[in-house]
């Protein structure tokens, strides 16, 4: 019995492996592992919560569940942009935490096999810590996010953002 369960679990993880939800921010395309994604919703009324870093836009009511939303543009220190009807909130579930990511638009779910994934090239001024890998799809390049880093950021940066 236990073996079957394990098998099932393995199967499920297998079908989700190597699949990425891609979304765009400006002209770049990003990818996020599908196993983290719970759902995609349109932009909603966001209730501001005071005294938080600017990239935390506030909280939204997702069918009775209250989840925080962060603006990925602001998180990556890009220029803010007006929200429109292409703007989406990707709800992800990481380490028991639900969180919404505001992105410009959601593109598609892609299969990126392991051989097409590379470590990001070494930069002189240090790598962006949110980018885990780089995926190649045809001629395009997808920046694959490290979701865990997105949430559990070092305290120091958070503090400096506030003050």
């Amino acid at each position, binding site marked *: 019995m236990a073996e079957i369960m394990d098998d099932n679990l393995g199967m499920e993880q297998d079908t989700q492996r190597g699949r990425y939800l891609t979304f765009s921010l400006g002209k770049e395309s990003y990818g996020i592992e599908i196993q983290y994604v719970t759902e995609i919703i349109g932009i909603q009324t966001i*209730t501001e919560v005071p005294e938080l870093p600017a990239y935390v836009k506030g*909280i939204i009511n997702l069918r009775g569940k209250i989840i925080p939303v962060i603006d990925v543009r602001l998180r990556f220190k890009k220029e803010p942009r007006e929200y429109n009807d292409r703007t989406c909130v990707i709800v992800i579930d990481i380490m028991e935490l639900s969180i919404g990511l505001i992105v410009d638009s959601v593109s598609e779910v892609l299969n990126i096999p392991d051989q097409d994934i590379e470590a990001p090239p070494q930069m002189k001024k240090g790598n962006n810590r949110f980018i885990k890998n780089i995926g190649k799809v045809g001629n395009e390049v997808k920046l694959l996010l490290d979701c865990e880093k997105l949430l559990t950021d070092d305290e120091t940066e958070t503090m400096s953002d506030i003050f």
Partner: protein
Amino acid sequence: MSDQYTNEPMLDLFIFETSQQIELLEQYIITCEKENGFKPDIINDIFRIMHTLKGSAAMMMFQNISALAHTIEDVFYFLREDKPELIDCSALSDLVLEGIDFIKVEIEKIKSSDQSDGDASSLIETLKEFLIKIKNENSSVSFLDNKKQRIDKKSQSVHDGQQYYIRKKNVIKKIYKYMYKALVFFEDGCEMENIRAFTIIHNLREITDEVYYLPEDIMDHDDSAEYIKQNGFQIFLKTDYTYEKMYEFFKETIFLKDLELVQIENEDEFERFIINHKEEIDSKLIQVPDLRENAKIDNQNTEHQHISNVQSMISVSVAKLDKLMDLVGEMVIAEAMVIQNPDLAGLELDNFQKAARQLNKITSEIQDMVMSIRMVPLTTTFHKMNRIVRDMSKKLNKEVDLKIIGEETEVDKNIIEHISDPLIHLVRNSIDHGIESPAERLSKGKPSCGTVTLEAKSAGSDVLIIIKDDGKGLDRNRIIKKAQENNLLYRDVSEMSDKEIFNMILLPGFSTKEDISEFSGRGVGMDVVAKNIEEIGGSVSVDSYFDKGTVITLKIPLTLAIIDGMNIKVGDSCFTIPTTSIKASYRPQEKDLITDPSGNEMIMVREKCCPILRLHKKYKVSTNITKFNEGILIMVEQDGKSLCVFADELIGQQQVVVKALPEYIKRLKKIDGLAGCTLLGDGSISLILDVAGL
């Protein structure tokens, strides 16, 4: 109580039912002991509870519980049948309560999925000895009479046992190929023969519809176990299975000693068996109601004085209720989205409006209902104290009476879980430290029996629970001395009121009792009580009168989840202030305002100077309303300190469901003055202000 059950459903049910029955049993025993006598209907009830317990425990293979229940059942069987005159009531209560404790411990073990390995044999021995003792003591009293009666009853019940059970439910009967007659004997000493027999029948039902067996009433009658032991368990069945298959089937039975399996060739023989016994049943049917009627009249004659807690109820997991509450919240939001849909703006829709109002009425009723489902009366929590009072008064040789008032008061389920332990502690304290020994009481001119009163009543959105004793009261001088020793005094004693001094016993590390007793006095008591109560937003206060007694009052919010809140608006944001902390709200006049050199604003209200807090400044919300005469001031008070909150406008008062801020935000930063958030009727989110933190 909040254990997350991860056991299988059968086990869950067993645990739940058993704990309920044990609780009921405990209450029965304590009532009986108080009245110093067991009433026939209570004996019947206890007998029934033990019987069920025995059956279900055996079913779940908890032999120790089942054996113990069996022995207790024997004792009560004797009480029920022979109605002996001489029973040592308190000894019996002690024994049964000991048994209850044993079962409780075992159930706890099962709950935490440990092996139920307690050994009840010594307890069973004592119970058996007790049974023999009362049998002997009572045998001289109307011995012949009783014996005759008993024999009568025995023969009758065995006679009753000779019935066949015929299933009439299946209208369309399958034609089966083979017929068998089986005679099953169980191993000696395997006990519960009737239940094992039932298991066979249960398994047989899977392969055939036509099963007849003897004795018929295996589940209802204990004598049937005896009968099976003596004569074996007879089964007649029709099936498509071959002889070999049937033989295999029966061979799998646990504790099987002997099996006779015969294939019956002749249909008539089979039919005859059934028909013969059918007649028997018919003739019996006339007798059985007779007996029942007698019993009923017996019951009616006896007074019903014991507390009856049996209500028709079902148990639902709290997780499901939480889910339901969320769903109702969603529904309210969805409703608002439909009714206030922008597409409808400017349209004259009379019928739509009518229907919408009806929908609104229903949804708000559902909302109220869901909230009320979570409310549970304090009855069980209070009645648990009976046992504690009883045990302690026996051990400490004090006479104590427990009076319960207002047990029907309802509070949220979560709260009940939090107050149970503090209550036990307070009651113990009252008996141990408060109530004096009978001799001391008499010398003071008080009745020798002390009284502990447990009272609950609602007061607004709070519930007051009052624990009162008529003991010696708190010793003011000893408290002061103790406080000095422990450096707990923060003010001059002469300046402190009695109440302030008494409330010092709630401070951590304070205990006036010099010697530690079994029940209380470890010096961790009162401060833990105070902490537990404060955790759920309540408060504790102590009052005491020398030689008159002590009164401890717990003030507890009705529910953790719902508060009455005033919604206010600042710019585009919405905030909620708990109504209980609001004193007044008004539009200020410029001339009342005072600004000190460092820019702090204050206002004079009713001869008092009160600081002003501008919400839009504190939380950096952009708003057009910054002048005092455009907005509104809300005066809030917490712990005796007042504060005026400046907001744009009041939106209105409503009951709100408190939700915690998301974990992510709490991890980022602890925001001062925010207690949580809540969903408003239209689905938007409002932040709940924590007045103490502003």
